């Protein structure tokens, strides 16, 4: 086991289409035994980061350290890492047993040790009956477990997983997610987990790294990322349905900070934004669960018209039109609204997010 330090990592790909900046100045400390997730939209550099840690790709600049040792130039086989690929990458011509054993064999483990470890891993992952089958004769979930087993069997210092669950159907995914969590509890190896499923990241991780265009946007505990997003990008990326965003101005009136958007005026809690944006342009964010239906004559009530109501299990998402656009409201399933109906909305003043400016990565004002 090891802690991992990623230091000022840059990666450029030069191709026919010019230069792609896949990673820009990524610095990150991962504690020994930590489960850390990298999330972000497609192409944001998650896989690239993982491949550089694995040694499958060399960084343009920057260093990787395991327990203080600089391993940036080491070959993958000299790093004592294990990786689970999105495609599983099981060796198709080998049986499950041979797949599991391969890494041990390459490191010269004697026969009885190999047999012992295969037995232990197979028992832990419940794949004993399949040891003599080939990967093509396994179901997706079974292949997934074999891929995990092949990585686990070597007691790696660092465990790298690249969207290991994305090829599974929804139900199996939830199941394997729980297994993965249990597994981490058991082995306590440092795990770096790449996913673009934020639910996976939220449920599994000690900390989450949110990335966009190769740049780290925020790193923090799941609840921190959710309740205190560092910028507009993180706020919108994390959470389904995503946070409502209203663009407008902020000014101070009679000593109180006031946000005004199209048809909306919200009095901000006095202590909330310490520094107001100098330009006066700002984006107000509020999660669907923090918007409530209020009486039309309540102070600050925002008039809106229901466009669509969706039932999602125990809750409902209502899409309502306000003057400046559309807002999503999340309520218990029992709250039934009909399209065309007019309602009044109230924002929970303690759950407002205010961002400096209206750009994609407008920083949060605190």
């Amino acid at each position, binding site marked *: 086991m090891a802690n991992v330090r990623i230091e000022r990592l840059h990666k450029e790909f030069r191709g026919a289409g010019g230069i792609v900046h896949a990673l820009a100045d990524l610095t990150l400390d991962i504690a020994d035994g930590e489960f850390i997730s990298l999330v972000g939209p497609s192409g944001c550099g998650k896989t690239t980061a993982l491949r550089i840690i*694995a*040694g*499958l790709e060399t960084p343009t600049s920057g260093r990787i350290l395991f327990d203080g040792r600089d391993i940036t130039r080491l*070959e*993958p*086989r000299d790093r004592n*890492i*294990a*990786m689970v*690929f999105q*495609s599983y*990458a*099981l*060796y*198709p*011509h080998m049986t499950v047993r041979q797949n599991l054993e*391969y*890494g041990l064999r*390459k*490191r010269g483990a004697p026969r009885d040790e190999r047999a012992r470890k295969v037995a232990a891993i197979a028992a832990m992952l419940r794949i004993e009956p399949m040891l003599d089958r080939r990967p*093509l004769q396994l179901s997706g979930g079974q292949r997934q477990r074999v891929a995990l087993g*092949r990585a686990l069997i*070597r007691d790696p210092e660092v465990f790298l997983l690249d969207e290991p669950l994305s090829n599974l159907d929804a139900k199996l995914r939830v199941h394997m997610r729980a297994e993965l969590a249990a597994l981490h509890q058991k082995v306590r190896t440092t795990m770096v987990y790449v996913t673009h499923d934020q639910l996976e990241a939220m449920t599994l991780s000690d900390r989450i790294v949110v990335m966009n265009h190769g740049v780290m946007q925020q790193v923090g505990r799941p609840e921190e990322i959710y309740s205190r997003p560092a910028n507009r990008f993180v706020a919108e990326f994390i959470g389904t349905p995503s946070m409502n965003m209203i663009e407008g101005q902020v000014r101070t009136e009679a000593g109180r900070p006031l946000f005004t958007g199209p048809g909306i005026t919200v009095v901000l809690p006095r202590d909330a934004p310490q520094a107001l944006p100098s330009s006066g342009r700002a984006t107000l964010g509020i999660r669907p669960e923090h918007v409530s239906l209020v009486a039309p004559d309540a102070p600050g009530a925002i008039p809106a018209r229901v466009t669509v109501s969706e039932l999602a299990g125990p809750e409902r998402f209502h899409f309502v039109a306000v003057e400046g656009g559309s807002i999503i409201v999340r309520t218990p399933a029992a709250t039934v609204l009909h399209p065309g109906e007019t309602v009044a909305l109230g924002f929970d003043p303690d759950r407002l997010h205010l961002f400096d400016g209206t750009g994609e990565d407008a920083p949060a004002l605190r």
Partner: protein
Amino acid sequence: MPPRNAARLYPLVLLLLAFVAFPLYWMASTSLKPQTEVFRVPPTFVPETWTLRHYVELFWLTDFGLLFVNSLKVCLVSTGLALVVGSLGAYALARFRVRGKEAYGRLVLLAYMFPGALLVIPLLLLFRQLGLTNSHLGLSLAYLTFAVPFVMWVMRDFFASVPVDLEEAALIDGASRLGALWDVVLPQAVPGLIATGIFAFLFAWNEYLFALILISDESLRTLPPGMMRFVSTTDTNWGLIMAASTLATLPMALAFGLIQRYLVTGLGAGGVKG
């Protein structure tokens, strides 16, 4: 194709088969007829009298056995070398990021298509200086001019179709580059290796020009030029020649029998499941 249409094609297939197979049949049947029956008019389609005399003569009176062994040696060596060198080259072309890779790949195809007749004289001059004329190794090397580009051309697609993930998994599991190639990539490419290997072998087995010009020592001769002497030196014993031809065809027939399975999945490259 639905079976009904397939059935309609049978007559056509049979016709084609007859056209291609008849000379082979004639060769084999002539080799089993006594000398007197060979020239009979009208000819007999099935030998009236069966005899193995020509085969016995072939081994007792001519150096056919030697020619056969020489050919086998040269072909096996050149095929082996072509597979090793060609596969490594093909792997590099398929995997590594090298400047000018595409241009080089096209050059390989050009080399493969270059007429051997234009190569043989420069090769002869070169080989004389290197002392590689009149040597089985030399002839094997000469065959590589055709076999290596061929292997490279076909195996490149095979290697490209093996998922990179597999190799990277092996690298992480502790293999070296070559180790990953050997443990993980080659097993996926076995059908391609077999198919290209057999083709390279057959090319060398049938090759006449290089064999004639690069080897002048009678004891080192290979089959194609060696058999030509049967035509000129004796007053052309057709039964004998047909016996020799039949035996010389045998490895090819065997090879094609073996290859068939792989031709379908194999040469269609990408027939490898990830």
